[in-house]
C-alpha cells in the first residue's frame, strides 16, 4: 500500500515535509503498517504506541484528514495514498509525535477526581444501576486527544477554551451521584471561553474512537448552568 507521511525531525529539518512510502501491509491495522515501516524501511520514523487495541490512547494521529487511532484503523478501509499527519494544532516534537502538555493541563484543570465531603462509610458508597448508567459514555475516555485536536473552536482558542476532552471529564464528575462538588465545578466552568466556545460543530463526537459524544456532555453542562440561573 502507498502512504504519505508527515516527517519532521527538529535536529535536521528546517521545515516539515511529506514522505512517500510503499509497503505490503504486514497486518490488518494501520499500526501494523507503521511498525513494519519502522522495522524494515526507516527506523527513524517516529510515533507513539502501546496497547495496540484502542484502550491506551497513545497512537492518535490524523489519518486521511480525520483523527483516529492507528491501532484500530483497518488499512483495507483507507483510500490510498494514506496520508498521515500528527494531530492538528499541537506543537510537533518529531514526525507523528505531538506535545500534549497543554491538553493534559486542561484535563487536570477541571479537577478530574471524585470529591465527596461526607464521611466514608465502612462499605462502598451506594449507587443505583440507573445512577451508574449516567456515567456510561463518559468514563470510557482514553485521553487520546483525537477530539480536542479536531475541534475548530479549540484551534482558535487553545489557551482559553478547555476543549471537548477536558469538558467531557468535567461532566463525568458533575454527573456522578457520588460527587458533592457540583456547585464548585459549575462555578469553575461558567466562563465565556472555557465552556461556551463550544459551537456544537461536533467534530469531537465524529472522530472519538470510543464512540463518546463530548458535544452532548458540553450541552448538559450548559443546561445545568442555565437551570441554576433560573
Amino acid at each position: 500500500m502507498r502512504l504519505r507521511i508527515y516527517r519532521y525531525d527538529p535536529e535536521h529539518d528546517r521545515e516539515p515535509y511529506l514522505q512517500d512510502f510503499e509497503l505490503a501491509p504486514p497486518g490488518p491495522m494501520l499500526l501494523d503498517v507503521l511498525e513494519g515501516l519502522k522495522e524494515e524501511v526507516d527506523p527513524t520514523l517516529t510515533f507513539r504506541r502501546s496497547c495496540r487495541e484502542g484502550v491506551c490512547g497513545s497512537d492518535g494521529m490524523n489519518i486521511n484528514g480525520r483523527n483516529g487511532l492507528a491501532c484500530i484503523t483497518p488499512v483495507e478501509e483507507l483510500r490510498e495514498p494514506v496520508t498521515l499527519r500528527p494531530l492538528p494544532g499541537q506543537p510537533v516534537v518529531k514526525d507523528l509525535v505531538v506535545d500534549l502538555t497543554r491538553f493534559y493541563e486542561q484535563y487536570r484543570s477541571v479537577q478530574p477526581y471524585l470529591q465527596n465531603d461526607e464521611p466514608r462509610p465502612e462499605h462502598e458508597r451506594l449507587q443505583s444501576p440507573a445512577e451508574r448508567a449516567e456515567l456510561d459514555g463518559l468514563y470510557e475516555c482514553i485521553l487520546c486527544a483525537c477530539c480536542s485536536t479536531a475541534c475548530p473552536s479549540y484551534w482558535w482558542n487553545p489557551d482559553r477554551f478547555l476543549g471537548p476532552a477536558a469538558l467531557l471529564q468535567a461532566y463525568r464528575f458533575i454527573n456522578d451521584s457520588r460527587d458533592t462538588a457540583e456547585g464548585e465545578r459549575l462555578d469553575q466552568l461558567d466562563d465565556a471561553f472555557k465552556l461556551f466556545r463550544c459551537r456544537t460543530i461536533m467534530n469531537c463526537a465524529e472522530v472519538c474512537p470510543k464512540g463518546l459524544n463530548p458535544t452532548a456532555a458540553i450541552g448538559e453542562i450548559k443546561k445545568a448552568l442555565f437551570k441554576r440561573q433560573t
Partner: protein
Amino acid sequence: MSASESPGNIPVRRFDTLVVGAGGAGLRAALELSRAEASTAVLSKVFPTRSHTVAAQGGINAALGNVADDRWIWHMYDTIKGSDYLADQDAVEYMCRAARRLVVELEHEGVPFSRTEEGYVYQRPFGGQSREFGGDQAARTCAAADRTGHAILHTLYQQNVRAGTYFFDEYLALDLIRDDEGCVLGAVAMAMATGELVIIQAKATLIATGGAGRVYRTSTNAHINTGDGLGLVLRAGLPAQDMEFFQFHPTGIAGHGLLITEGARGEGGYLVNANGERFMERYAPHARDLASRDVVSRAMVTEVREGRGCGPDGDHVLLRLDHLGEALISQRLPGIRESARRFAKVDPVVAPIPVFPTSHYTMGGIPTNRFGEVVVGPDGADHDEAVPGLYAIGECACVSVHGANRLGGNSLLDIVVFGRAAGNRIQDFLARNRYHRPLPEGAAEATRARLAELEAPPAAGSGGESPGRLRRELQTLMETHFGVFREPESMAAGIERLEELGERIRAMDMGDRGAVFNTARVEALELQNLYQVGLAAAHSARARTESRGAHVRRDHPERDDAHWLKHSLYYLDHHRLAYKPVRMQPLTVDAFPPKERVY
C-alpha cells in the same frame, strides 16, 4: 525543585521517593506517599493513563459477598491452590484479608464500578474461584463492565493529580544507583523528548514497571511490557525469582493475541472444539470452563494438537457467547464485543470468537516480602534480607502471591494491596533515613558506557540488525522453546539460540542516533531488558525438573513437592541459579498443605 549537577555533569533531581512506573501499583503507592506529604516522583515511559493496567478487563477479587456469600479465607484457599502451592502463604493471607478494604477504598476514590440492584459493587464469577474450600463457584470479581483496569488506572491517576504527586512523563529508567554499602539511591533515567540523562536521587526507590509478556510472540500485553524493572534489578546484580512461570491466558483472539476477558466465561460463555464439544468437561469436570488458566490453556493446546482444533488450519478453538443475549453482552462485556468485531470480525452476540492461549502474565519477578521490600540473601542463608532503599510491587515483583499460576482478578488486587503496603513501609524507612546519602562517584558511568555502545555505528560489513527484527526473533524463539509445553531437548536448543541471539543484540544497529524522541533507541534499550527476561525464563525453566502451574514439562509431567516446593532465583552473572523455600506459614490461620490439584 532545584536541579543540581553531579560530577559527571548530569543534572540531579532529589525526591524522598522515586517510583518507577505509573501503572496501578506505582500510582497506588505514590498516592499513599503523597498524601503523607513525602515528596514523591513517579517516572513513566508513557503518560500514566497509557500504562498497561488500562487494559485489564474482568475485575478485581475481594470477598465482598455482594452477589453470593463469600469469605476472605476461601479466597486465600483458591489463590494458594491456583498457585499450585508455590505462593507464600503469609503474603496470600495478607492480600486476601486486605482485599475488601482496598476495593472499598477504590470505590470511595471514584472507580465507576458496575452495580447490583441494591447499589453495591457488582461481582462476577471468575476462574479458579470457589466457596467453602473447593465447593460451589464463587462470584468474587468486582467489575466495572469489562473495563475495570481502565477505571482503576484513571481513578488512581486522578487522585494523584489531586495529591500533588510529581510526574516525569516519558522518561525511561536505565539503571539503578547503588553505593558501596548496597543502598539504592535512585536511578539514572533518560528524557525521551530530548535524549538527555538525569539522575533522580531518592531515599527510597520503588520499582513498579509491570510485566514482560512481550518476551513471547503472541501476547495480550502492550508493546511497552518489556520487563524494564527486571532489567534494572538484574543489571544491579540482584536476582529474578520464579521466572519460569509465565501465564498463557486461554482466550486471546486467535492469531492476534488480544485479550478476551475470563469474565466472558464468568458471565456464562464456554469453549467448544471442532466437534462442537464442550471439551472442558473432560479436563475439569467440576469447574469446567472456569478452571484455573493453566488448566484451560493446556486443555486448549491439547485439543488442537490432537486434531480437534477449529478453522481451516485447525489451530484454535471457539468461545461461544451467542446464548447470552445482546442485552447482557452490551451491558457486561461491551469492550470485548468491540474488540471481537474489530480484530476477529465476529459479533459475539451471533457468532463464536476464535481463541487460543496467549502470553499474558509474568508470575515471577523481583523477589520481595509482603511489605514490598526487595529481599535477597547469600546462597544457603536467609533470603529475607532487605536491600536498603529498594522496593518492588505489582507484576514486576514476586511476593509471591501468584506462585506458579495466577488467578484471574488477583493482579489488580495485587497492585493495590502491595502498592499501599509498600507506601506504608517506605514511610517507616523515610522516618529512619531522613537525609539523602551521597551519590557515588561516577554514578552514571555504566549507563553511559551502555549508551555509547549503542550509539557506535556498526563496524563496517557487520550488518547490525534492527531492534524490531531482533525482538521478533527473541519472541518467536521463546514461543517455540519455552511455550505452554516444554521439552528438555528443545529448551537446551533454545538456550543455545539465545546465546547466539545475544551476540547479535550486542551488535544491533538502532538506525536512528538522533536526540529528540528517538523511539528506536528506546526500543533498543527495551530489547536489552526483554532479552535478560528471556534468559531468566529459559534457564529457570530448564533447571526445574517438574510440572507445576504454568510450567509443564513433558519429561516430568508431575509436580514434585519433595524436590521442587521452592522458589528459583536467577542471577545474570553466569546464569547462576539459587533456590529459597516457599513460606508455608500464614500469618494467623493454619497452613494449606499441598494436595492434588483438581478442578
